[in-house]
């Protein structure tokens, strides 16, 4: 009762007296969350970097299915949409919103940093925006770029041509690298802590920028009019080189065995924080499993796990993509999961963002193409060896050397005769090195170069004459909320409307 009386008195006195003053109504400042006014680059950066790395390893299961890495386990019924290659606007719609969401944070980081002279942050933001837009263009071709991130000016953002975006990305990566090179630590508050990849190491960032730069250039390898020389020159001018063996770019915010805090790869494909198996859907694909097992390649035991409950002595058991699996066939527990001991070591391991393995393969291809100087065969052998080392294969170097020494066409440098054969060999070995590590890259290389050349198509009865999709369709949300621009792109076919670099 006392409380009520008190409340009434308060109401009568406070409200009565205060109601007339203007300040009485000036109470709308948010007490619960920071606003754009109060946020700063160092508070955005760590989460954005983590989210980028997490997206790269957790979002591309379906591409792993398409390229023959992974496939559906016997525990699940068919997933008709991806397995028939007959994708709709709903398929992977979160790619669009997810990347723009991350890019929004980098964009704010860039603006905030530029306004305060934090050129290190600004440069990093530019480079990470390049990565994000590369992923968008590689999946959708034309997307909003120059008109993006401007709600008040462009509530219906127009689409830019994929090729135009790539042209600008090349400029941006260079600009970002230059900004980083000229930055001072003092001006960039908290960078050593907020940079959960390189702890503010400028040289490492420049190496990463160069590697991303090279990756962009290689995407354009099949574009007939493309001349890489001026861009290669810029990389050389920087002089920091590329990510080298043992220098993988990894993200480590402090992963822990806790709800929502585990390493993203582990958390999605290995185990939940509770200790339960995280995923019973994706299992080893017989195609890639065969490539390892028939060619004396132990790496399958590092990419995939032994079955928890093997049946008939099948310790490593996989399925075929798109097949109708009879009820009597082995289930998830009887087959090999996709988080083998070479990939998922602990729940708290750092998350790879760009591996040394991929960097070495990128360099090998560039050398073989004559874009970079060096011996292509050595670069190739180094890249393959790095894969064994990176996976933690027992006696990695020796095992790799033995593997490379085989006369099998899948690995033997000499067996590849023409320059095109050698490119195919490098890309095939890159394919074998990135199982689950970078499904996206394998999907991109398959579209760019058609490697693996003998990839079987889906066994789904409803596939018809479809082939592996060449892109995603714009999400339904774009047709609903940005209709005029989405429709201006015309009819899009996931079978034929190729990304500009896919010739």
């Amino acid at each position, binding site marked *: 009762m006392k409380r009520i009386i008190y409340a009434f008195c308060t109401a009568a006195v406070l409200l009565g007296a205060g109601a007339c003053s203007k300040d009485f109504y000036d109470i709308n400042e948010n007490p619960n969350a920071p606003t754009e006014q109060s946020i700063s680059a160092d508070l955005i950066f760590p989460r954005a970097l983590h989210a980028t790395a997490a997206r790269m390893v957790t979002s591309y299961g379906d591409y792993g299915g398409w390229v023959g890495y992974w496939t559906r386990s016997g525990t699940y019924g068919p997933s008709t949409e991806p397995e028939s290659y007959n994708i709709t606007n709903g398929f992977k719609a979160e790619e669009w919103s997810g990347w723009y969401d991350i890019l929004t944070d980098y964009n704010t980081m860039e603006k905030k940093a530029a306004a305060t002279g934090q050129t290190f942050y600004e440069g990093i933001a530019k480079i990470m925006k390049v990565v994000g837009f590369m992923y968008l263009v590689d999946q959708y071709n034309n997307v909003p770029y120059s008109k993006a991130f401007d709600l008040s000016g462009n509530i219906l953002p127009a689409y830019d041509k994929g090729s135009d975006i790539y042209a600008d990305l090349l400029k941006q990566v260079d600009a970002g690298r230059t900004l980083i090179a000229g930055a001072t630590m003092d001006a960039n508050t908290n960078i050593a802590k907020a940079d959960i990849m390189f702890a503010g190491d400028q040289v490492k960032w420049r190496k990463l920028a160069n590697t991303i730069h090279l990756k962009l250039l290689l995407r354009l390898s099949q574009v007939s009019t493309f001349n890489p020389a001026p861009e290669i020159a810029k990389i050389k001018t920087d002089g920091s080189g590329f990510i080298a063996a043992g220098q993988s770019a990894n993200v480590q915010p402090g992963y822990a065995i806790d709800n929502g805090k585990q390493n993203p790869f582990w958390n999605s494909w290995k185990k939940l924080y*509770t200790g339960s198996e995280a995923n019973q859907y994706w299992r080893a694909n017989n195609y890639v499993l065969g490539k390892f097992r028939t060619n004396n390649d132990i790496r399958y035991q590092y990419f995939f796990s032994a079955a928890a409950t093997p049946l008939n002595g099948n310790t490593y058991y996989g399925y075929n993509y798109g097949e109708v699996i009879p009820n009597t066939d082995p289930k998830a527990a009887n087959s090999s999961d996709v988080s083998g001991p070479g990939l998922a070591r602990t729940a708290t391991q750092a998350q790879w963002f760009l591996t040394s393995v991929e960097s070495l393969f990128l360099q090998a291809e560039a050398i073989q193409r004559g874009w970079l100087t060096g011996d292509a065969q050595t670069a190739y052998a180094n890249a393959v060896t790095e894969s064994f080392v990176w996976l933690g294969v027992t006696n990695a170097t020796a095992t790799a050397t033995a593997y490379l020494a085989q006369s099998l066409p899948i690995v033997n440098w000499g067996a590849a005769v023409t320059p095109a054969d050698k490119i195919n060999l490098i890309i095939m070995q890159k394919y074998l090195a990135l199982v689950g590590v970078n499904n996206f890259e394998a999907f991109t290389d398959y579209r760019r170069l058609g490697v693996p050349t003998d990839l079987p198509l889906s066994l789904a009865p409803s596939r018809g004459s479809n082939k592996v999709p060449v892109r995603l369709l714009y999400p339904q949300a774009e047709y609903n909320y940005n209709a005029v621009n989405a429709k201006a792109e015309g009819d899009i076919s996931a079978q034929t409307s190729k990304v500009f670099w896919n010739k």
Partner: protein
Amino acid sequence: MRKAILAVLFLVSATVGAWAQKLVVTGKVTDSTGAAVAGASIREKGTKNGVSADIAGIFSLSVTPGATLQISASGFSTKEVKATEKLTVSLKTEVSNLSEVVVTALGIQRQKKDLGYAATKVSNAEMTRANAVNVANGLQGKVSGLNVASINNGVFEDVKINLRGIRSLTGNNNPMLVVDGMPISLGYLSSINPNDIQDVNVLKGTSAASIYGPDARNGVLVVTTKKGVADKPVITLSSSAQFQKVSFFPEFQTKFGSGGYNDYTPYENWSWGPAFDGSEVELGHQLPDGSVQKVPYSPTNAREEFFNTGTVLQNDISFAAKDFYLSVQDAVIRGIVPDDKNRRTGVRLNATKEYAKFKAKFNVNYIQQNYNVFDDAAMADYNAANNVGLNQGLMNLIFNTPAQVPITSYKDFINNPFAEFNGYFNDYGLNPYFAIDNWRRKGTTSDLIASIDLGYKVAPWMDVTFRSGLTQTNTIESRTSKGETPTSFGVSRGFSLIPGTVSERSYNSRRLSTELFASFNKTVGDFKLNAVLGTYVRDSKARDSRVGASNLVVPELFNVNNRTGELTGASTGANSRIGSVYGSASVNYKGWANLEFTGRGDRTSVLGIDNNTYFYPGVSGSVVLNEAIDFIDNMQNVSLLKIRAAWNKTGNADIDPYLLAGTYSQASGFPYGGLAGFTANNTSYDPNLKPEFINSIEVGMELGLFRNRVGVEVSYFNQKNDNQIIPISVSSATSFTNAFVNAASFTNKGVEMDLRLTPLFKFNKGMVDLKINAMYNDNEITKIYDGLDELAIGGYASASNYAIKGYPAYVIKATDYKRDDQGRVIVNANTGYPVVDPNTKIFGRTLPTWILGINPSVTWHGVTLSALAEYKGGHYAYNDIGNAMAWTGVSAATGNNNREKFVFPNSSIETSPGKFVPNTNVTITNVNDFYTGVFRSVYSNFITSAAAWRLREVVLSYDLPSKWLGHGKVVKGLSVALTGRNLLLFVPKTNQFSDPDFNFTTGNTAGISNSTINPPVRTMGGNITVRF
């Protein structure tokens, strides 16, 4: 000085009068059938001496011998009788609109005939006759223009209430709730004891907003609680028991059992196995001890038998004396879902004290609800985390179970090895009894509603009132998961661990308001002037704090300290204020013409300083033609002919605080120790948001015929809603997915009709009444935003509510089969399968265009039989349970044609681009694949007409004659009643799923039901009320 002397003289004369010889009259006031007329006023003619009858119609009054008594009551014609010691006065029902008094803004009582807008009064008796636990349910079907939809059947009786359709596309469409003059949140409607309520006045239009402020734009429910009237105290005891049984299950196929592609699988949740043959089959896996469950392969009714009989027990006691009312209510609701329970206990005290010109009133109501229910959402989270689809709600676990499975035998999931977590037959779903036990939501909500009213009569023509109100809600809730670790056998079946978790929530909100207003009444010649001038200030504060542990260590110790990992949690606060100045002035000429002007200015804290003040005016008028024009007055049989009209503008900014700037939050596991990481949230805000406005006109006619035995009331309303504050969806490329802007416009119009036949006819000592009300409601969206013609309101991506320019709000848009130019479904020439057209199509509106209530009643001696039927129609609903049941092959549709191959009806085949020929012979390759595939992706397959007829209430009540009770010496009245609610539900044949009113939210999205919603029930019971 002169006034003071007069007052003294009056006191003296009153005292002197008391010494004179007196006659004590005791008596009873009844209606023509002999039923008590509660609260009738008994007055000694020519004096101020008077009293009110109690609930039993009994009164006692000391008068001068030989005096004449005037007995009057609302709804009856006044009668004069000579005072004698014992009296029984029978009043004639007048049922006249002329004398009806309604409570309007600020609790001011107005003659209904003076009003320029529509208002309807629902008395306590009408509301509580079928023992509705919730006030809103008690109003269902009784007021034209009022749409009360029960959106689920559970122990909370969630309802969604709209008056005259909607005025906001994405915002608040809830009517305002005013209890004893104090505006409070609509949510309290489910807390208030219906038996405490004297009447509910429903102010339908936006007219009341000029006095009550922006919340009143959606109409107002003015609730007046009881106050004691008689000198002699009355104690009322009442007790009711009601029983609930599921009245409508989705239609099942009962020919086929578990398995796939015609093969029997003992551990499948699919019912795509072979046809039932009665043979003995194994069910589930062989357990590690070698035991195997065996059941007959034939359908059971176990899915229906899973549900309990729900019970609702209500006990009330109230004590009423002059200006004093005290009541206690206890309502215990046990749901049809095992273990669901809610208990509501409330106390109310209403007290008034008058002293000369001063009047003080204090009302306080404290309600506590203790609930313990299954936590659907937590189970859904667990399933989502484990990639188990189609297991959103409990109904999925029950309805999707193959028909041969004896679900009800799995109650004992601790000792029965076939019911136990690891041993349950289903590889893809949990034992529902286990799930119910594992995930619980328990809590206590305490509501305190209190108000103080101080009135002072400054002059005979001026009253000043100060009113201060407090509402406070405290919710303490814990959500728990006991957790389960699978054995190695369970792991081999693919079962994952269910963590033991606890999440505690403390929600506290309080709203304080103060109001000061003066009212003026003055008669000048033939003119009666009326004015109100007032000011209102409100401060609302809330804090919602949650803390949780996602991995408990010691089993079933639900404390956040008992955990590994970090504490989870959040705490958000909100504070907003609004202040207003308002006024109204009305002039009434000779009692038959009335004109009223209103205006209100608001200032709100939720808008920017430059936009936070806004003003809105209104005007309304009425003419009682039969009094104004002799010609009509002379017409026989016309007892009332009134026309009225109102125009007003209403402003509002009904948004949460802090919606003027975008925010950032930590996500993806951040903070990691000392490392923070923020990300921009997905909604953009406009710092220059402006208030939105509604322009509303209303015209109406009220007609009384044959001495008001026939009453007709018709209203037409048209509301233009502009500059709506809405969150529009935008391309993610803008940085956001939603933007709060001033954008959409739409019109909302309709007609309300009330027909009252009282009595329809009379017979020997009895009569039959009939009341019918109806509303036709339509609306059209005229604008969304530049370059944007549609706005998603809510639902599933493939079946959702939309607001689309040129269409009514809302329409349901869903996926359909791909069709040729003649509307035939295009099928593949080889496989016979149709495909999904990814372009969603409009399948109709989700809000009813027609609502009709029919309420006949028969009275004979003390017996009353009354019924209430309600129809809603013109709208459509999407039933997601149909989709889930197609996947598992349990729905009736999947049993069509005995699962033989068939040619898709009205289909065609594309022979060359754009050329189609009818398909006469290509059959669907595989029925199993068809229903689990494309049939399910075509969401229009689960859209049905939402039209329904309901028998809402049937009540048979009997008031025992007072002679049986010893003429009221101890027991003054006793009545018994048999009640039924929602006895019958008639829906179109295509609706094989559920009550079409059921919906997953009380928000604006309509007609979207899912598997967390229980099946509808019918309620039957009885009550007994005794008055002492």
